């Protein structure tokens, strides 16, 4: 039963990923094309999910937006996991003052009001960047700032490994610290890192969506799930045209699928 659910989730994810990658072929129109005579149009043959407030085809924007969110969120998750792996494993392995310092830094990092900090950081970045670059910057920021939570888990995992018998044996055989860390500790942290990577993806998708709701994040005219979700601000318009819920539906679906395919043993690792 569990396997069926996982297979189904993997199938849905594969479908959504494929559709987003084939957005150029599947989209009825360009994502930025404004049909100015049809703003806020209801679903029709020409516009299967209707149009947004500027007359842009909602289906096309959803497909391109999925590409943006689904490709860059894993990239940001990879960056965050790498940083967490390096910092968490080093701190956990060294122990003592370096570990305490790293733990304090992680706690401090997690206690900062990131939303406000992101707004400030975004304001200090160069203005004249193309929407594509702004997109890269947004996810790079998310990735660079998202290391602390997984780093705590990695540090705890490394600390548990540090005093294990096989590490003691390796140390007794004269194994150098760098070799110990790379050849013995890190391979044993793989399940932890893998779990942190998969958990981070939906977190970053939602973070980008939050930034989009604040009018930050991915710049016009590029769509992302974040800026598509802004259409939900107007609840009466949502009632009038429930197709506006499509990005929310897709976001929930994808996050649910990510949770379903996560290997359970990774959580307990």
């Amino acid at each position, binding site marked *: 039963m569990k396997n069926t659910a996982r297979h189904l989730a993997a199938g849905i994810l594969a479908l959504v990923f494929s559709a987003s990658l084939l957005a150029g072929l599947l989209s009825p129109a360009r994502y930025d094309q404004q049909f100015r005579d049809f703003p806020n149009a209801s679903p029709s043959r020409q516009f299967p999910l209707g149009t947004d*407030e500027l007359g842009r085809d909602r289906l096309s924007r959803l497909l391109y937006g999925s590409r943006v969110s689904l490709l860059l969120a894993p990239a940001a998750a990879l960056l965050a996991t790498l940083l967490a792996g390096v910092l968490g494993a080093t701190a956990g392995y060294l122990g003592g003052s370096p570990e305490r310092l790293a733990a304090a830094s992680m706690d401090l990092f997690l206690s900062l009001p990131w939303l406000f900090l992101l707004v400030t950081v975004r304001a200090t970045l160069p*203005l004249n960047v193309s929407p594509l670059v702004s997109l890269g910057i947004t996810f790079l920021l998310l990735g660079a700032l998202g290391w602390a939570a997984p780093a705590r888990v990695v540090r705890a995992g490394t600390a548990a490994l540090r005093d294990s018998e096989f590490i003691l044996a390796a140390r007794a055989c004269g194994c150098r610290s760098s070799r110990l860390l790379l050849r013995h500790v890190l391979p044993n942290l793989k399940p932890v890192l893998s779990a942190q990577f998969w958990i981070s993806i939906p977190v970053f998708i939602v973070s980008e969506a939050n930034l989009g709701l604040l009018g930050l994040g991915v710049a016009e005219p590029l769509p992302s799930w974040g800026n598509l979700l*802004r259409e939900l*601000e107007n609840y009466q*318009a949502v009632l009038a045209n429930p197709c506006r819920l499509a990005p929310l539906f897709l976001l929930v679906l994808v996050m649910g699928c990510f949770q379903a395919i996560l290997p359970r043993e990774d959580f307990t690792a």
Partner: protein
Amino acid sequence: MRAEPKTFHPLLVTDEPSETVRYLTSGVLIRLNRVTQELEPELAVSWKTASGGRQITFQLRDGVSFSDGAPFSAEDVAFTLRAMMDPNLRSPMADSFGPGPVRVEVSGTARLTVTFPAPVAGLERLFDQVSILSAQSPKKEMAGLGPFLVAEHQPGSHLRLTRNPNYWKREASGRRLPYLDSIRLDIQQNRETEMLRFRRGQIHLINNLDPELFERLAAETAAAAQDAGVSLESEQLWFNQVARAPLAAHKKTWFRSRNFRAAVSQAIQRQDICHVVFRGRAMPAPGPVSPANRFWFNAALKPAPSNPAEALRRLQAEGFELQAGLLRDRQGNPVEFSVITNSGNRNRERVAAMIQQDLKPLGIRLNVVTLDFPSLLERITRNFQYEACLLGLVNVDLDPSAQMNFWLSSASNHPWNPNQKSPETLWEAEIDRLMRAQAAAVEPQKRKGYFDEVQQIAVREAPSIDLVFKNALAAVSPALRNVTPAVLRPQTYWNVERIYFAK
């Protein structure tokens, strides 16, 4: 109200919520009728200007009392004017009357003459903003001559105003106004919640309604959605022309080129912005002054239709070339710039996205950047780290003298290039001259002649591209009577003393 009033002192008002309270609780000598835009007698029954606009004599109304019962006399007006002009008080209104000491001569209880050191353009109109304080009342600024008085203030929640029992206005039958016993001013930032409460009958008047909400309301209750027509509020785009701005030299050259600015202006489909973003509740801007400003608008100016082909020709004449869908300048630099606007204003973000699309056929790449408001202000007023800016301009005063801080090249609010030591362009020097001339002249027609020229120069040089003028939209409960929304503030309750509930 969108926010808490910053002050209850009528002479220190700078924000809109405080202005609302002032309007409802204070009395003035002369009132600008918000519908006819004519001056009408209030606490002064008549007035006469002399000495070329340096002097004004008022004949005051008899038998008027402040809300606490203290009698109103010429001494109160003299006290108010002296308080307002006192540099220690730092009243923002004092600037409008010009520098220097003011001489006030009181002759009897109902007559006084005010003499200013220099002529003041549109002198009578300025008294629409001067709330009269009581010289004798122990409550000072809390004793008012307006139709209501502040009875309760719950910070962050609401203000309750109650009827002034001593208000001087009466209806024809002799009944004392106002009709309403009290007014509750709710502090409500969220527009959706505001509309929801209006639908439930918990709010009866909403000013400055968003076109989207207005359209929804009109579909539900047509009588409640009231459009007073084109207002004084505009959307504008300007390029950074500050010489010391940290921009690439070639970009400074573009932004300082009249043909470049005019071409951008010509490429923008203003009619589409009105139709798509403002749901038809706006008009393409013919110039920097709204047609809603009946006297000062230059009627010779018409909204220029969009013409991308002509815009491209203009750019080519300036040395730009369209190559493979990308516009390049003489040195081969691709024409790409960013426009900043404040985040959270959906309509403005939509306008930016439409301009981005309109400039595409010219080969111009426009990057839209939304910033939080403090960061945006920092960039446009201090460090000048921006290329173009899209913002709204809210004009609350009809007279051009109130806009000196916008038009003069030395002014701090001269958006495209503020605080110039001397005008950096010939046309700015000409605008400076014309604005000073209109401020020094007394005859209205002569002043209008000067200001018409200013508007023509602004359209020709396009330092700030005027996009659209928005309509003044309001929600008015069908239960209320005598509400006639106006384009000037306060839109729906300018005649508050005559508003009442239908029985």
